[in-house]
């Protein structure tokens, strides 16, 4: 992950890159560059992933059977490798989202005890 982000953000994000990628891929099959741009757009440029982060993560997820890749040829003859989530990937995503929500809730309770 690159970009002008707070000092501790990489630590927070570590371990959650997979969840971000799985979440976007679950919405609809997509490809690496689109994922990079989509994460940038949705986070208001907070997250600026580079190819060196996204593609290794995609390949690891595919090797673990969480996503499946398939080459497709566009009308302009350009090729792209589209990724779609697998059933195993969906289950892992649910677990990751639940873990993240539990974590953030717990942190918020510590930071803002009045809200608890």
């Amino acid at each position, binding site marked *: 992950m690159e970009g002008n982000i707070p000092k501790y953000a990489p630590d927070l994000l570590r371990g959650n890159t997979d969840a971000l990628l799985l979440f976007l891929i679950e919405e609809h099959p997509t490809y*690496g560059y689109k994922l990079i741009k989509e994460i940038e757009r949705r986070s208001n440029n907070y997250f600026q992933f*580079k190819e*060196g*982060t996204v*593609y*290794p993560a995609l390949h690891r997820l595919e090797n673990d059977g969480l996503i499946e890749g398939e080459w497709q040829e566009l009308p302009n003859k350009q090729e792209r490798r589209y990724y779609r989530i697998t059933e195993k990937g969906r289950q892992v995503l649910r677990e990751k989202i639940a873990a993240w929500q539990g974590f953030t809730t717990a942190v918020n309770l510590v930071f803002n005890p009045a809200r608890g």
Partner: protein
Amino acid sequence: MQPDVKNYLDEVRLHLRLDPAIERRIIRELYTDFQDRVAELRASGLSERDAIKAATRALGRPRVIAQRMYEAHSKGSWTEAALASLPHLIIALLFVSHLWHNPFLAPAAFTLIVGVTLYGWWHGKPSWLYSWIGYSLLPLLIGGYAFRSTIVKAVTYLFWSEGSLPSAWLMMLVLALIIFSLWIIIRTTIRVVKRDWLLTSLMLVPLPIMGGWLFDPNGAGNLFQGNTALLQPLDGPMALALVCLAATSAIFIRLRQRVLKFVALLAVGTIAMTTVVHYFGSPSGFFGLLAISLLLLAFLLSPALLEAKVGHGEQRGEAWWQSSSLEEPSVNS
């Protein structure tokens, strides 16, 4: 294709050291990403030249991408780890049961190993294959050893005119065997080095142990004279060393980071080989063992030098990763 792009992708491929099918897929994917990025930069008003430069810069350092891609693909499954350790365990079993001189079991074990090696070689060269290749080369060494007296006789006659020349057909047979063995060993080693010198070290690691056992004057010299009982004290250390190699091969396959694979292989490999050499009874003393350890370490590192000479991968033209169809290349490791 622009030279900047080609150089960049070549640099990535140079450091990938993965199965060629996976390398092809990675480079192909990075190239499509690059095309998307250039198109976006051009649409924002940059010239083609500036867009290409900016896109190349945005992709990040080639070594970093290659290293992360390597780590994404380098960790094998437990099944692959078990398969990688299996040839060491098969041979260790022959030693531990003192059955390595059985006229049926030892040839059957090597036939199995060669068969599995050929299967793996023609089915995508998965990462577990490389520990099998080393043992598949052993029958060639054993063949050379079996004909050693013929070779010595021929050399003595030709250079010192002493004794008699072996029969012509035997000479031709031995010569053919030597040429064939050297051809197979050199060609295989170069092919594996072109993929990854570390896999070559994994492939070669049993050879000094088995070769030492085979060529040691107190070792297999007795094998061909039928004095197998004299060799039995070596069976335990040999089995232990091979079990160490089996564990190392499994760990090697399971590790993700290249540097850890490197350390595991060189450390355990050198220790196992030095232990066996120590049991052979030569050389004695700390410095003798140290010298042998350094020699064995140099042997395991020699594929790195060979890689510097022969390079990585095969020479390819522009856009070598693009196939005529969009079918997924086979991915086996």
